[in-house]
């Protein structure tokens, strides 16, 4: 186990190096000159020249890459051209927001998706199964931004129960914080719950027909014990993989949902940065997201071992 962990951790650095090259290289393919995009409507040639000089935009690409990587090694991710603030500060400001939203969305997904998947598998080919499958299809098909706007119309404009958008820090008011996040977390969680339900259902169906489950039943164990203690534990492995990947995707910023509900997280940050050619911000956020993905995959691997003792050997 320790050797396995060490091997996985050692792979993080070269992976990140490769990712950094990819981010930097791909970004150069974006058309438009960041200095021109940032020089304001007047596009004063003196300002354009100043911005090119200040942000090393005149330097050759390898030099710019080297300057960026050198900065990262001392914790300096560069400065946002648009709002003139260190990228590191922006990331630290947005990470807890996106993290909380992603966490709540996963909670919604788990609370709906896993039980629905289990019930659909146990009640296979019944009205409950068909109902759950249809609900899952609806959850996957419905566009997030549309569902978001409908929820705002219903719960904010018509009923006045929830704030339409915005974010309140939990340190300021936990109640307000949760009220602002209920709708976006539901919108995001709803789509993941649907996928999760499908995965749980098919994994459970496979496991429920396994010999050891039949043996457990033959031993006279209760239905609940067979399903929850014996079947579910083994069926959870694909669900954990899916959860890790979906959680990683959520951390990279739920762009549309954050835009609709005006949640100041990674999604909004990266969209604004791309449209304004704020390269340092794009690079910093994507690198952090890549790191989050790598760590989540590592955690998923550890979770496999904990869930399924057979993998410990």
């Amino acid at each position: 186990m320790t050797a396995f962990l060490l091997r996985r951790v050692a792979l993080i650095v070269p992976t990140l190096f490769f990712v950094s090259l990819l981010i930097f290289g791909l970004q150069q393919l974006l058309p438009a000159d960041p200095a021109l995009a940032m020089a304001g409507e007047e596009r004063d040639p003196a300002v354009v020249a100043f911005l090119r000089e200040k942000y090393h935009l005149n330097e050759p690409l390898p030099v710019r890459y080297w300057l960026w990587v050198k900065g990262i090694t001392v914790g300096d991710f560069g400065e946002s051209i648009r709002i003139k603030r260190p990228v590191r500060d922006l990331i630290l400001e947005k990470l807890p927001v996106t993290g909380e939203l992603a966490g709540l969305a996963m909670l919604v997904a788990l609370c709906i998706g896993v039980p629905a998947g289990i019930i659909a598998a146990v009640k296979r080919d019944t009205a409950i199964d068909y109902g759950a499958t249809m609900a899952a299809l609806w959850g996957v098909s419905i566009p997030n931004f549309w569902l978001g706007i409908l929820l705002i119309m219903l719960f904010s404009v018509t009923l006045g129960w929830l704030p339409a958008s915005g974010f309140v820090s939990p340190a300021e008011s936990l109640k307000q914080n949760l009220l602002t996040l209920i709708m976006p977390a539901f919108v995001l969680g709803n789509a993941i719950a649907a996928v999760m339900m499908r995965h749980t259902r098919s994994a459970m169906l496979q496991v429920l027909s396994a010999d050891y489950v039949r043996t457990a039943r033959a031993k006279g164990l209760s239905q609940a014990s067979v399903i929850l203690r014996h079947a579910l534990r083994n069926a959870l492995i694909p669900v954990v993989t899916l959860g890790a990947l979906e959680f990683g995707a959520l951390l990279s910023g739920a762009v549309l949902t954050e835009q609709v509900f005006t949640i100041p997280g990674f999604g909004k940050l990266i969209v604004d940065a791309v449209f304004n050619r704020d390269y340092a911000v794009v690079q910093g956020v994507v690198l952090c997201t890549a790191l989050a993905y790598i760590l989540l995959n590592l955690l998923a691997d550890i979770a496999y071992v904990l869930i399924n003792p057979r993998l410990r050997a």
Partner: protein
Amino acid sequence: MAMRRFLSCALLATSLCAGAASAQTTLRIGLAEDPDILDPTLARTYVGRIVFASLCDKLVDISPTLEVVPQLATEWHWTDDNKGLVMTLRQGVTFQDGEKMDAASVKFSLERHLTLPGSNRKAEISALKSVEIVDDHTVKLVLDKPFAPLLAQLTDRAGMIVSPKAAQEEGDKFGEHPVCAGPFKFTERVAQDRIVLDRFPDYWNKDAIHFDRIVFLPIADSTVRLSNVQSGQLDLVERVAATDLDTVRKDTRLKLATITSLAYNGITINTGNGDRAKNPLGQNTQVREALELSIDRTALNQVVFNGEFAAGNQWEPPSSPWYVKDMPIPGRDIVKAKALLAAAGVPHPSFTMMVPTNPETLRAAQVIQSMAGEAGFDIKIQATEFASSLDLAVKGDFEAYLIGWSGRTDPDGNLYNFVGCKAPPALNTGHYCTPDLEPLLDASRTAAAVDERLADYAKIAAITLVDRPIVYLWHQKWLYAMSSKLNGFTPYPDGLIRPQGIVMQ
């Protein structure tokens, strides 16, 4: 018993007092974007100017009818053949850090605009040679040559006076904690989330301010912005979508305010920027005239903007005092357009029109494409993300570009840099240049008298509206939705939200 009653009363009184003290009045404003840096010298976005209107007073301001009115300067006059502007400053004004606002701070702020690396104000006031302190409350702005638009420039960020002490202490971080002499002082900013300003108790015009706090919340989606004001989360939102105006009008919880902006939208034609100018549209004024005659501006406004915007054919809207009345909006004339194309020898000219990927502008492009098609034009629409379209335009990689300009108080700001030979190539992207126009453009910015300038603009219109390097089409309106309880809001042509006089019932 008496003691208990006394204690109860005391408790009630205490809680009432606490209630009164905590009943802070907050004005919550929804913005369409997150502003850039809040330093008047470095700032570049329109939305940032809305925040500055509460944060930083200017030397002079505009009235809703575009007259220049006093703000930090109470009086002014031109001297030395219009090469000197003497301004008398308001007495007893302090900055939000308690420092005194005087002639030295005005000199400091204007010089900062001219010298700070990366200043976006330098080009706006480049005619300014020096600032002389006449006395504590009088300054003289000395110019290289007469430059009439200077006064109008001082109604915007170039006229904002910052605290020299704070600016020197903060250096290039001043934008993170700006200190000016406006009605509200900077408290907090969370990027892309909120900007919080608190009432400045020593503001010189404090009687006009009726809120303790202003919170600006950037909400990009116009539907969500409107939903917020409908549900009572916001008190006022800017840039309501024209297609949502019916909703606002029918909702008794809301009020609407509108005003024609200083902005214009039109088709910029590449007449001289590289190889892509070498086509009938770029080279032949008859073809451009035919294009203009094929477009029905009123129908365009009706179809795309529900008739809410103003049709236009000049760099200033028809409602502006600077509009050249002798050259009104031409009507649609397909027969004449076809005849012009036939005379030019190109009955079916084809060109590509670059359009930024904004839903309303794209719809407008489609309507233009259809209208011009009836005259024989074959227009291909090239939808391009804004920053990329700007890059292509500067490089000359376009034939026609449906684009707007946010507008300036002085007409010079809507004209000189877009049609002049000496204009920055990044603004005059079509590289239109006619030597006959240059002396007129120069004269229009040197004369101080309005009548003289209007006469110059009439001569300029007689050239540019015939050459048509830009086919002006419409002027957007600033559209605001607000709570029906909000009173005293006055819309201005520059679109800014001035907090003075706004009160919640």
